[in-house]
């Protein structure tokens, strides 16, 4: 068995490498072809990284469609759906704030869309964002029927929160996660986009 050990290790490495390579390409092809963009809704997003939380804006179905439309710009985009009443959302938020700080300057746009009640737009939501020292643009979803929004974002998403989607510069989803995001996986996916200077 000892003689075989190096051989097993070598084979394992080869197989793992092959699997990862196959998967990254299949992920691309399987990704939902979502598109991004909106000059109006998103105009402040391309501004320099601010030091204080931005004003929270209401966004409706058309606004969400514009945010994820590929006409808008040519930078990778990270979108996180969350709410202050959602424990895993609160749990992952510091990681996302750090992601924003680390990658915005490297060309990543990041917007957070809150599912809190619209009545909380001047209370609970900004208070939480201040606690988190969050500086990414934050929108609060203002729709009576969530279904068209969920379908517009990802046909496989059942609406579970939190949900995180990473689009490449062409508007294609390259990473998505329902539930508390696994930060190392998210960062790895972002690195692939900003590292390749798309």
């Amino acid at each position, binding site marked *: 068995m000892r003689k075989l050990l190096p051989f097993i290790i070598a084979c394992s490495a080869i197989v793992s490498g092959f699997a990862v390579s196959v998967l990254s390409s299949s*992920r691309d092809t399987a990704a939902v072809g979502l598109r991004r963009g909106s000059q109006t809704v998103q105009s402040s997003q391309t501004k320099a990284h601010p030091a204080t939380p931005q004003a929270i804006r209401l966004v409706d179905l058309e606004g969400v469609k514009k945010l994820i439309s590929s006409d808008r710009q040519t930078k990778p985009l990270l979108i996180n759906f969350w709410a202050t009443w959602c424990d895993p959302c609160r749990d992952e938020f510091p990681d996302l704030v750090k992601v924003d700080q680390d990658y915005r300057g490297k060309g990543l746009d990041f917007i957070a869309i809150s599912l809190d009640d619209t009545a909380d737009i001047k209370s609970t939501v900004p208070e939480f964002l201040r606690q988190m020292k969050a500086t990414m643009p934050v929108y609060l979803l203002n729709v009576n*029927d969530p279904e068209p929004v*969920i379908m517009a974002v990802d046909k496989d998403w059942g*609406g579970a929160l939190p949900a995180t989607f990473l689009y490449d510069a062409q508007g294609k989803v390259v990473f998505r*996660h329902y539930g508390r995001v696994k930060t190392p996986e998210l960062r790895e996916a972002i690195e692939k986009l900003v590292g390749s200077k798309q």
Partner: protein
Amino acid sequence: MKKQYAFALFAAMLLILAGAVMAGSGKSSDAAMSPAIGATIGDFTLPDTDGKDHSLNSLKGKNGVVVIFVSVQCPISNAYNDRMSKLADDYSARGINVIGINANKTESAEAVKEHAAAKHLSFTILKDPGNKIADLLGAQHTPEAYYIDAGNKLLYHGRIDNSTDTAKVESNDLRDALDSALAGKPIQKTTSLAFGCSIKRV
């Protein structure tokens, strides 16, 4: 012996490949795919909050059963407590029983029992340790509902209605589905979507 080594090597490679597939999928591994509408849901058994086992078929009414994944802590699930109880009361009289399933690993059977008593939930709640049934049904969040008819066929999967705020409800999707089925008519909308709290899986 050589054959044994070769087999061990093959098995190791398969395991590594499977692990890479799981890790690299990019999509959430927190939820399995839901059965298609029309699929037959096999009988299953889960314990209630006192540890007593119940099978799906034993809880089913003569016209089927509504299964709703629920939570103790989720504000969205809690927004539907009264509506779920009313649903159970209204439809048990028409042969469709409602059962809740709590698949959150973070919520104990005791907590589920206390919560059900405090909120006067009028339907049986089962605990799904290891989220096996949540995986079987592909449930992602709470509340998430399934209507399974008397023949164990899945006829509806999705939300209860469109809004946590009763004043904003415009689309009673689950009730509409049940009413159609009871009237012997095709269900117009067999799937629907709403936001909810992700199920805390093991």
